[in-house]
């Protein structure tokens, strides 16, 4: 199991032919209490960098960008009813969408976990 990260604080976890997408613990700590999540529909396709979801804290709405291109094959249907899962378990139960990657080579441009954690230390 391999996890990749972006400097926009998303993570991509490869699981066989598909990948889960979420936001990092650092991202949720910056957002504060999440009160609403808007997820895309299954079947939607994203190019890398597209707005894939919206997460709203008490204060503000933030876009979540697709860290890689892909086809949405599942969404985390528990999130709309319990958005605080994103605060409690951002890098596990708080995943947003499952994608089939259409451009797997894009993963090469992402950070590995050690590089991402080091990047966060500089912020």
């Amino acid at each position: 199991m391999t996890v990749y990260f972006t400097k926009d604080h998303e993570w991509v976890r490869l699981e066989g032919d598909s990948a889960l997408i979420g936001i990092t613990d650092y991202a949720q700590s910056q957002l504060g209490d999440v009160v609403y999540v808007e997820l895309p529909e299954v079947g939607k396709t994203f190019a890398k960098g597209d707005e894939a979801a919206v997460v709203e804290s008490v204060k503000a709405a933030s876009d979540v960008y697709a860290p890689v291109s892909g086809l949405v094959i599942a969404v985390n249907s528990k999130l709309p009813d319990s958005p605080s899962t994103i605060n409690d378990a951002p890098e596990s139960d708080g995943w947003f969408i499952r994608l089939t990657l259409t451009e797997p080579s894009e993963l090469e441009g992402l950070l590995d976990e050690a590089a991402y954690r080091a990047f966060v230390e500089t912020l």
Partner: protein
Amino acid sequence: MADSATTEDILLETPLAGLHRELGARMVPFAGYSMPVQYPLGILSEHNWTRDSAGLFDVSHMGQAYLVGPDHATTARALEALTPGDFLALAPGRVRYTLLTTPEGGIIDDLMVTRSADPSEDGTLYLVVNAGRKAIDYAHIAANLPEGVQLEIAGQLALIALQGPKAAEVLARHCPDSAAMGFMTAIRTTIDGIDCHISRSGYTGEDGYEISVVEDHAEPLARALLAEPEVEPIGLGARDSLRLEAGLCLYGHDIDEATSPVEADLGFALAKRRRAEGGFPGAERIQGELADGPAQLRVGIKPEGRAPAREGAEIRDAAGRQIGIVTSGGFGPTAGGPIAMGYVAAEHAAPGTPVTLVVRGKDLAATVVPMPFVPHRYFRKQA
């Protein structure tokens, strides 16, 4: 995730800035100051804490000033020339909410005005104005005063708000005088021996106090109150959700120089005598709107579902025509869902009117509802 904007501007600090950092606050730029937006508790918990117990807020960024004249009637008339409030009838020790109005009937700022209970200070009115407006307010007031009345800006004062159902019980331990105060009254007293000016008021919809204190004493005072188990420090994030649930306007968002007090549903700030007599800036427009009804009105709006509608969201009628705009919106922790306020054309302002909000390009069903979203719990003395 999109990064939030940062600023390189030099920000002012309140006398409590060091304490905020020690308490783990996240500081953000607000109205030219570096202010705590939240503490480690988080905005939701801070909001709920204030509703259930007592929250301590640093509001030292707000402007404090004195209008000083030879006697009460002279000073009151000077303020009445700038606002639609009745200050001639303001009794010693009483606090009033009022509005500086433009000649066109818009709102320059909303402010609190206190007449001192101390006969030796007769002729002085104490003003508290919004942080982001103080320079504008002071210039406007100073330029429009009659001979013999001066504006004196208080430079060395901090302002601390203690808000929530346990605020009175907590403060009474340090200041027995505070317990008997009614809503919108003020006294000079001491808290743990520190000289203060206290008013029983606030901007959260809860019972509570605003405490004005010389800035060197602000930190010891804040620490003494924070040492009480009922008290937690609360940031601007929760202050905003509390005031929104209470249906209270935020200057620059819900009211500005274009909106009139009648449109803003602030009729309570238009004193009966002044409505009849006029003689304040914008009286023509305001009296006309009182007689004929305004073209648009500030209303409460409850979106269906869970998606919050933020400031700037378009409000449409059933036929899809734009009828207004959201001026404040978000998630109401006590209300248990999204809430908003905004302006709609008057014919759509009745509670129960269905409207559509446009949020990120999508239509969101919503309803005009009465405000406040959460009932006020101000302390009313029994007669």
